[in-house]
């Protein structure tokens, strides 16, 4: 048997004449866990799609089990190469076992053998020490559990090389730990795992070997243990990192926003009490499903409020919809940029001006006025865009997020609720977004509430943190008390 399950030799790929991968050599051994890191647009996804047969290389060879192979998705599957994309390929309206065997059903002459599929699913699930009933509807599962189902599905197809694209981006710390245990067990069974993530700490923790891509070129492949997170990050951006987080803001004494005895009709938020000082960055930490997003959505009027008070600038507000919130100067950056933040098929400038079109109306909408507003944000936020008319979909994640933030700033709001502001955003854009927040505090007197699952982020930017668990606020941490240990302790309750 060949030592390598898969090698790439001089792989290049062009998209409409532009080279996005430059002659990448890489090799993957059996039963080893690889971490692939790089900024957005570095070529990670393109390389992974080529390895799993979804894209053909423009130049170069792919060698599977020592033999040169032309891959397509079916052939890759037959060879045991499985890609788990960031957006999972599962059907919410089917049961767990039906999802596991989707497209791979066991059937007799005419009818499906349900019992056998349920039994096989149960075995697979137990083999990896998981507790999910094969009969549950997928829609009832948490994002983390869905992730596990997707992995089980891959294993059921006798995967030998499993590629996971950002599997941890929606998971909390403890769920990540579960996932890592599963990955280690797969390694024990001789499965090769390629793990793509923006979170360097995780990559360093799980991967034995690291591949760094930058601008479509492989700049490093080697053992993970010799590298520090800082060194990896510096290889990714190609220069020394100045500090990731800007200096924390100095909030004023006065309380600008206060929530009292707040509960949502659906019971996802129970008796929340908290306050924010003017010019503060207030963090909200908790596991997925702890009610952080739900609390913010109730404040902003998207979810129905059962009872409770909101006091903003000394005035009690009644907010039942996003437009009422906007009129009061409170805006929300949703956690899911693609489905709720950016409007992908609209031009970039139209995204920026969407929430304050009134400003550009002189009888009719004045395009030149809209474009000049957009351009002022291009300068202020360093948005990388070819022209104001570029369709938002073709911007990188970080630039899309900056456009969404510009849209919110345009409303003239003073209280910004940011839900996972840097999810799926590269290291450089992350730094810039933190600096934009600081800038908004200094220049327009903004105040921030930031919901995040990213521990270093919460620790790095917050003046204070509230921790939520099962719909309740369970702890308030002052600046000195904010630590990884404290946050996880309160979030998990153990």
């Amino acid at each position, binding site marked *: 048997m060949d030592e390598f399950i898969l090698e790439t030799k001089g792989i290049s790929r062009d998209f409409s004449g532009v080279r996005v991968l430059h002659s990448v050599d890489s090799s993957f051994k059996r039963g080893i866990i690889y971490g692939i890191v790089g900024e957005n647009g570095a070529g990670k996804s393109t390389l992974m799609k080529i390895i799993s047969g979804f894209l053909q290389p423009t130049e170069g060879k792919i060698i599977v089990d020592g033999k040169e192979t032309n891959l397509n998705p079916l052939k890759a599957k037959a060879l045991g190469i499985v890609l788990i994309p960031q957006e999972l390929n599962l059907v919410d309206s089917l049961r767990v076992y039906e999802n596991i065997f989707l497209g791979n059903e066991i059937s007799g002459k005419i009818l499906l053998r349900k019992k056998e599929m349920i039994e096989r699913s149960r075995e697979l699930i137990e083999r990896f020490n998981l507790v999910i009933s094969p009969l549950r509807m997928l829609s009832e599962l948490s994002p983390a559990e869905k992730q596990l189902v997707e992995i089980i599905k891959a294993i059921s197809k006798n995967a030998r090389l499993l590629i996971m694209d950002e599997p941890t981006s929606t998971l909390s710390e403890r769920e990540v730990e579960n996932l890592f245990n599963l990955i280690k067990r797969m390694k024990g069974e001789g499965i090769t795992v390629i793990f793509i993530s923006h979170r360097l700490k995780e990559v360093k923790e799980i991967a034995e070997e690291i591949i760094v891509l930058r601008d479509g070129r492989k700049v490093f492949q080697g053992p993970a243990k010799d590298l520090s997170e800082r060194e990896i990050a510096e290889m990714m951006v190609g220069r020394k990192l100045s500090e990731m987080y800007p200096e924390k803001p100095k909030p004023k004494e006065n309380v600008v926003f206060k929530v009292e005895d707040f509960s949502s009709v659906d019971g996802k938020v129970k008796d929340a009490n908290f306050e924010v000082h003017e010019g503060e960055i207030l963090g909200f930490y908790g596991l997925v499903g702890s009610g952080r997003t739900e609390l913010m959505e109730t404040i902003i009027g998207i979810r129905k409020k059962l009872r409770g008070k909101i006091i903003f600038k000394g005035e009690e507000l009644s907010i039942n919809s*996003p437009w009422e*919130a906007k009129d009061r100067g409170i805006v929300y950056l949703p956690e899911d940029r693609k489905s709720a933040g950016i*409007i992908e*098929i609209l031009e970039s400038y*139209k995204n920026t001006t*969407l929430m304050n079109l009134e400003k550009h*109306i002189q009888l*009719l*909408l004045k395009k030149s006025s809209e474009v000049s507003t957009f351009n002022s944000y291009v300068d202020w936020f360093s948005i990388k865009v070819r022209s104001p008319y570029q369709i938002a979909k073709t911007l990188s994640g970080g630039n899309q997020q900056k456009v969404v933030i510009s*849209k919110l700033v345009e409303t003239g709001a003073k209280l910004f609720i940011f839900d996972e502001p840097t999810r799926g955003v590269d290291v450089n854009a992350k730094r810039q977004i933190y600096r934009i927040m600081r800038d908004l505090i200094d220049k327009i007197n903004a105040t921030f509430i930031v919901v995040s699952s990213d521990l270093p982020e919460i620790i790095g930017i917050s003046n204070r943190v509230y921790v939520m668990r099962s719909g309740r606020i369970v702890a308030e941490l002052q600046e000195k008390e904010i630590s990884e240990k404290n946050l996880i302790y309160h979030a998990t309750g153990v």
Partner: protein
Amino acid sequence: MIISGILSPAFLKVRNILNIFWQTSYVGIIAIGATFVMIAGGIDLSVGSMVALLGAFAIEVVNKLGDNFLSVLVAILATYGLSVLLGLATGITVTKGKVPAFVVTLGGMAIYRSLVLNFANGGVYMSMSQKYSSIGMSFVLGIPFPMLIFILYATIAHIILSGTKLGRYVFAVGANETSAYYSAIKVDWVRIWTYVISGVSVTTSAILLSSMMGSVSSSSTGNGFELDAIAAAVIGGTSLNGGKGSIIGTFFGALILGVINNMLVMLNVAVYLQGTVKGLIIIGAVFLQNLSRE
């Protein structure tokens, strides 16, 4: 155009081209309304039956009030009023009632047709007013009145769609309803307004058509208009998935459809087969849209 000119010399006569334009106006005006609905991500299948219902309503009001200028004016205003109500009802059922637009307007299609059939007892509404009939048959500066209204209507619609807040919101809602909602846009009302605009367009068309004909047939007036209106919009680049489209596109889409219809007649294609050609054109246009997206 050139091909049809060669195939049939009658095609290129000024009179014929003017005729095509004229014939296209009725569906064209409706297609403009449909464009708003479709860009916002909806669909309106009820427009054909609505033409018959509203046309019959206008004729009936004029007949009741007598043959004078005032009664014609009242009839027109009342018909617009009725169509605004129907548009509101459709829009509110779709948005607040969360019934898919396809179902609501398919139901509307059946309801409007059956109402007009019932009131006319399956027969025809005849206009007894000279004043009313003179609208649809009049010429301004040698141009048929319906054609003039079509051009004017398209111009106003273009300004609304590309130059107003409502127009921008229509695009935003159709492109991504959730993002639009999180951006504090009153998504439901934007969609309701598109159905009102569709209703108003149908009224405009119904008045022009019923006054030109001097009658409305409860069984055949407006038949297949929904297909033609959607086809015109789609040929003009409006996406059935919402978020994309333009009035200029629909305007020329309607004209292209008119030319094709005319060609089929000139080339002696059997009347019964014309639906086949239109059906293929819609399917082909959407197919091409999908290709260009990839």
